């Protein structure tokens, strides 16, 4: 360093605020994940549902909780908390309106509680996709809306903070971690318009009895407008860490600041007008539009391929610096003993398979082979439940000590935890993929379905076996988190954990200016959404048929 940059010391209060996000995130994961193994055990005939029947009425109620708590709550709370830190640490300044962010956060919490009530009372057993005309209690829709609105408000807090920083720092490239956080939030704001419109114009008034019917195909179209970018909302914070933090943790630098930024812009640009790839088997949408979305989906795979390159190159730099030699020696030279690093590396490895599966799913007619089969469940347990979740677990291995000032409880166990998840998931998801190719449907307690042939039983057993290993993995994670957060084992003054922010190999100031300018990218994003969705949505709205009563 020629000149040492001033760093911003995150205050106790800010740390507490971020920590609260993590508290709710991990609480959701601990409850939501317990249903995963129950489902997995049911597959091979070990049906534990009768034992929990006094509280949870059915496989499907549990599955709804599993999807909502894991995929929606764990992710959203972890992400908003983590991004708050990357905003203030990257921009080196506090939030301009901390109260605004607090209002946003507590709105999310109120929303969470409001959603939880009908879920626990078995009055919202509609799965996390809440496809009408299955109808939930109106509290469920109100609660979801509040969670989304709360996250919007937290996002506004980020944007105002960025604006203030920009005034103070004209012409300076936005620090990468904050840049990535801002794009993730912008993506989220645009993406959630779909479900917001779905709930406010159809589902909520319908559940309150103000309108008699809904248009289920229009509802699906709104839902998947949100549903695909939702997966990037989950994934981008993990990418933020892989690009902007992991290289530092591994002892290297970010290989290409420019390509990292380009990838994030492309995600913003392309991740919304691709939602029809979840609706290839739907009626009511012309094949031409489905194909356009398929082609754009290949487009959004492009920034992920860039990510693969840049992250591997950054890690190779790190591994070679640490003395790794030969074609793969650098892999072994990486700090596998650091639980945060190893968890994220393992998450990244499984994501390669998740990505290949994703391209398969997106391949238009090939989707007929896998749509709504167990293959899909195998796929997203590699992506959201591993690439994202295991990365977040890895991040929390430094984040929780950083926020609390406590020593990580048993780091070796934390390393083992990552490996347990990795191994369990390989078994689980491989079996799920195979079952899907054999034709096994998802969202079904296969252990008691009448049509299940004998030849599936080995794979069903592997699902249960993988699920048991994953159960150990999730329990270990929660125990490590609890023991670390409520520990008396304080880190000494010279052992303090710092936020790992990787430097780029080259001065980010040399990154082309168009990669740090919002307006052209936002205009292009809106234009592409209008092209990709406009005509078909307009047609559906002009021919809207509110003919489905609730069930």
């Amino acid at each position, binding site marked *: *360093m*020629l*000149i040492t940059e001033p760093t911003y010391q995150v205050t106790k209060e800010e740390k507490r605020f971020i920590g609260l996000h993590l508290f709710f995130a991990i609480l959701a994961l601990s409850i939501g994940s317990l249903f995963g193994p129950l489902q997995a055990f049911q597959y091979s005939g070990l049906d534990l549902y009768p034992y929990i029947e006094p509280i949870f009425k059915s496989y*499907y109620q549990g*599955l709804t909780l599993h999807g909502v708590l894991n995929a929606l709550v764990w992710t959203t709370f972890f992400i908003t908390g983590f991004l708050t830190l990357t905003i203030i640490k990257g921009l080196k300044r506090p939030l301009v309106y901390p109260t605004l962010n607090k209002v946003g956060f507590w709105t999310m919490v109120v929303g969470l509680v409001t959603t939880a009530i009908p879920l626990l009372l078995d009055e919202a057993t509609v*799965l996390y996709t809440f*496809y009408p005309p*299955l109808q939930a209690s109106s509290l469920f829709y109100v609660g979801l809306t509040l969670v989304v609105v709360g996250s919007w408000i937290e996002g506004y807090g980020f944007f105002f903070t960025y604006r203030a920083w920009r005034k103070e720092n004209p012409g300076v490239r936005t620090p990468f971690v904050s840049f990535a956080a801002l794009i993730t939030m912008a993506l989220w704001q645009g993406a959630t318009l779909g479900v917001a419109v779905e709930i406010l114009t159809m589902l909520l008034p319908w559940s309150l009895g103000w309108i008699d019917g809904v248009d*289920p*195909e229009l509802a*699906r179209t709104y839902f998947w407008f949100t549903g695909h970018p939702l997966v990037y909302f989950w994934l981008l914070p993990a990418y933020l860490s892989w690009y902007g933090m992991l290289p530092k943790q591994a002892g290297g630098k970010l*290989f290409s600041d*420019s390509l990292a930024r380009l990838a994030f812009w492309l995600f913003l640009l392309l991740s919304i007008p691709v939602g029809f790839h979840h*609706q290839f*088997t739907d*009626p*009511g*949408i*012309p*094949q031409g539009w*489905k*194909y356009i979305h398929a*082609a754009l989906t*290949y*487009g959004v*795979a*492009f920034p992920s*391929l*860039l990510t693969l*390159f840049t992250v591997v*190159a950054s890690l190779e*730099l790190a591994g*070679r*610096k640490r003395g790794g030699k030969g074609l793969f020696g650098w892999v072994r030279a990486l700090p596998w003993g650091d639980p945060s690093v190893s968890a994220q590396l393992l998450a990244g490895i499984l994501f390669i398979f998740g990505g290949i599966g994703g*391209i398969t799913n997106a391949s*238009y*007619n090939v989707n*007929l*082979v896998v*749509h*709504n089969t167990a293959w899909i469940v195998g796929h997203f347990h590699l992506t959201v439940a591993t690439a994202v979740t295991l990365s977040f677990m890895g991040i929390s291995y430094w984040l929780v000590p950083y926020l609390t000032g406590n020593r990580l409880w048993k780091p070796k166990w934390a390393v083992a935890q990552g490996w347990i998840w990795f191994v369990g998931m390989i078994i689980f998801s491989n079996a799920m993929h195979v079952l899907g190719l054999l*034709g096994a*449907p*998802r*969202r*079904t307690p*296969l252990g*008691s*379905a009448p*049509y299940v042939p004998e030849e599936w039983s080995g794979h069903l057993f592997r699902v249960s076996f993988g699920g048991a290993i994953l159960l150990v993995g999730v329990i270990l994670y929660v125990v490590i988190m609890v023991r670390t957060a409520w520990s008396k084992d304080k880190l000494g003054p010279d052992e303090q954990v710092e936020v790992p922010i990787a*430097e780029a*190999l*080259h*001065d980010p*100031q040399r*990154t082309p200016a168009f990669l740090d300018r919002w307006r052209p990218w936002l205009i292009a994003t809106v234009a592409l959404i209008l092209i990709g969705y406009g005509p078909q949505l307009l047609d559906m709205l002009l021919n809207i*048929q509110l*003919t*489905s009563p609730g*069930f």
Partner: protein
Amino acid sequence: MTDETSSAGSPGPAETHEEGWIDPTERNWFRFSIVLLVAFAVAVGVAGFALGFQVPGDEARVDPRTVADEAPWSDRIDNPVREVAPGEYVVYMIARQFRYEPNTITVPEGSTITFYVTSIDVQHGLKIQDTNINLQIVPGQVSKLTTTLDKAGTYPFICHEFCGLGHAGMFGTLTVEAGEG
């Protein structure tokens, strides 16, 4: 202001970086990725639109509250399989909690069948094992897809969308009978 002098240990690619904002190895990867993805897009496009391996499209709309009593669905039980040309059949099917109507279908080997399926209550799925038939069934919409059955045997069809507490029991059977010869 970040450090300009790259650290001693950093390898080759770093130096060539001076040229532009993309490193040459990166640029190759860039090109490779684009070619690969364009090739995929072309391949599925050709398979779908030129060779006829199609997904369902925008077929027709119906009123889920009355469709069961209207032609041609009203005749679904008495006349489950209609031959429209030699070897070509049409099935008008209704999916409902928790069965298909018709729930058993029989056709001769080598037949081509087109399904027109809709729901009178919630969403359902229809996947006929070992065929290309995989449909999301949405009330108010008609899902249409065609398949050719060249091998005799029984093919279960299964509901793959959660439709209520009886969902796991929702299935039917398609039987393809061996030809006379």
